């Protein structure tokens, strides 16, 4: 909150496009020639435009203003998250998980999103956001329920205020808006944080959600993890916008642009937006620029659509390294602490390996249990049919 003057958007760089037609209206002179009566400049767009380049803290003087305990907390979660990703991917190779969309490289966004929320808040994750879900406190094994082929959601969303991992892209965004709106109507100080990918911003649901949020002044924050790709499709085939954060002004909410690999920066930007929402300031759109180091999922072959050079450039901008350097340079962490963090991560991985090793036991009869509050006559019949089949199978 150090700087209050909005940046000039023109500072973002020289125009890359050809000169365009006039926009400044000639001075009105004729009698009665006023602007259309319905029109008045409603809000100043300038403060809604994002910063000219991604906001960063690490390696800048402002990093010194960040609570070292927060830095250490973020660091521990990043390391645990990285290890979780690696372990989960390994579990797919062993057939223990049906599929895993890794967030390696994006851990700063995942962790910062979870830690910026208070207990009364809600997280609306997209399908790639298992780490955020776990960092918010959902059991690490339960969080994998969907991905291991077990029931679709392994946790009670109300327990930790975490919506189910959402697969149809961008469809979770209006849910977050509706929940935030309901909370505001109830007078609760609840904020919803919804995650979406760069690809997901192209969906109509993204647009409708942001518009509802702005019109309703709902306490919701949208975090775009712009990781450069939607499966194989690079950002430049996804949008021609100056940045995804520039979409915010079109809804009348502020857009923020942040280095998505700078965990304290993401945490700060999200915290500010969440605080703003909580205190009646309405929604914010945050774009975090990051990178998906792994393939789309374990089933994907990323070499088909991107070259190693780009990946290497991003490895040099690794969220864990960036934060570790800050901690080390400023002597905020010592070797013992580093070791403890590594051990905590290994313990998490070991627990994952162990608990995921056992095959979950699902009762097929539960197929019929939660379609409706009460089973319909049709479902009772179908359940009876399955029951009979299962009995016959056992008899064989």
């Amino acid at each position, binding site marked *: 909150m150090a700087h209050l003057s909005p940046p000039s958007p023109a500072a973002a760089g020289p125009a890359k496009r050809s000169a365009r037609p006039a926009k400044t209206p000639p001075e009105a002179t004729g009698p009665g020639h006023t602007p259309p009566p319905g029109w008045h400049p409603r809000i100043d767009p300038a403060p809604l435009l994002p910063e000219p380049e991604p906001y960063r803290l690490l390696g800048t003087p402002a990093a010194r203003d960040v609570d070292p305990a927060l830095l250490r907390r973020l660091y521990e979660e990043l390391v645990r998250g990285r290890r979780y990703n690696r372990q989960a991917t390994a579990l797919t190779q062993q057939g223990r998980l049906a599929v895993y969309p890794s967030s390696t490289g994006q851990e700063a966004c995942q962790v910062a999103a979870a830690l910026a929320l208070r207990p009364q808040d809600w997280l609306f994750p997209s399908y790639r956001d298992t780490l955020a879900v776990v960092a918010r406190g959902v059991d690490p094994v339960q969080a994998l329920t969907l991905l291991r082929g077990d029931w*679709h*959601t392994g946790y009670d969303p109300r327990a930790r205020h975490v919506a189910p991992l959402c697969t149809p892209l961008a*469809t979770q965004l*209006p*849910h977050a808006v*509706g929940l935030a709106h309901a909370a505001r109507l*109830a007078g609760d100080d609840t904020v919803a944080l919804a995650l979406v990918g760069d690809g997901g911003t192209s969906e109509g649901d993204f647009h409708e959600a942001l518009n*509802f949020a702005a019109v309703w002044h709902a306490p919701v924050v949208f975090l775009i993890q712009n990781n450069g790709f939607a499966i194989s499709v690079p950002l430049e085939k996804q949008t021609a916008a100056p940045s995804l954060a520039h979409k915010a002004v079109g809804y009348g909410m502020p857009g923020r642009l942040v280095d998505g690999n700078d965990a304290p920066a993401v945490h700060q930007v999200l915290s500010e937006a969440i605080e703003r929402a909580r205190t009646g300031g309405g929604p914010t759109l945050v774009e975090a620029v990051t990178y998906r180091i792994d393939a789309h999922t374990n089933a994907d072959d990323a070499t088909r659509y991107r070259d190693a050079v780009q990946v290497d450039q991003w490895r040099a901008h690794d969220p864990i390294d960036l934060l570790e350097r800050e901690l080390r340079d400023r002597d905020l962490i010592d070797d013992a602490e580093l070791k403890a963090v590594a051990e905590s991560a290994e313990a998490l991985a070991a627990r994952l390996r162990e608990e995921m090793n056992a095959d979950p036991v699902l009762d097929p009869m539960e197929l019929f249990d*939660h379609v*409706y509050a009460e089973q319909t006559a049709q479902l009772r019949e179908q359940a009876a049919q399955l029951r009979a089949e299962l009995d016959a199978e056992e008899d064989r």
Partner: protein
Amino acid sequence: MSTATAPASAPAARKPATMAQALRQALHDALADDASVHVLGEDVGTLGGVFRITDGLTKEFGPDRVTDTPLAEAGILGTAVGMAMYGLRPVVEMQFDAFAYPAIEQLISHVARMRNRTRGAMPLPITIRIPYGGGIGGVEHHSDSSEAYYLHTPGLHVVTPATVADAYGLLRASIASDDPVVFLEPKRLYWSKADWSADAPQGVPPLGRAVVRRAGRSATLITYGPSLPVCLEAAEAGRQEGWDLEVVDLRSLVPFDDETVCDSVRRTGRAVVVHESSGFGGAGAEIAARITERCFHHLAAPVLRVAGFDIPYPPPMLERYHLPGVDRVLDAVARLQWEAN
């Protein structure tokens, strides 16, 4: 609208009311009885909806309870999902049948599945009101019958009233349901009238129960929503041909009341299903197939279907050729192989 300001509890005699008034009263009473009920949609506030079903409700309950939304159907239903996740009971209005299509992803992938997905932890008690069907001279996109899409989607209830009293009762029951309900309002019956009062209701009917609207012995006409009056008229006219036709009003397509339907068909031995949506893959297909499965040896003739043609809904000047009418229903009855008797 005379009922607009009548308090829910005031005694009132039964007097002529339209289906539109009964629906409005149901919304009114639900809003009054349960603070978690919220109404949202395009033009439902100040205007009272294009069919005036929400007339005056914003004034009475305030814009936070009865809310004009931006013009985006997926957004309306998607935000309703979030509101329900927070414990509210949203009642959503889609302005016309064809304008519900943008919301179908939210409907199929979330509304219908959230309870199942979360193993019962997160039910979504959302009512989605959709004016449907033709017969009102509406231009393209204003007369679709889309019930077949909804009834094939597990997790949804699909309910449609055909009488003024049911309009009230079934809408109250739908809003009270802990499951999502697609509530299809036959728009050409909005102005149909009956003696009715919210204060002398016949009780809120349970969802999922059909009702025999006219008893008969020759054959059963099975129908719902906008086609009920057609079937009742056909049953009257059929007397001249010597047919005593029973008429079953399904009221709920999901769950389906096999009992009432099969009881009737087993008694009469013949059945015709009547609806106005396209026949191919329509509700009538399911109804005919399940009657046949369950009542095969009671059937003197195949279950026949009278439905709209398999064409995009025609323009006003031609819709009367498309819509099942009395003659077409009686033609089908005539084809029920009476010589076999």
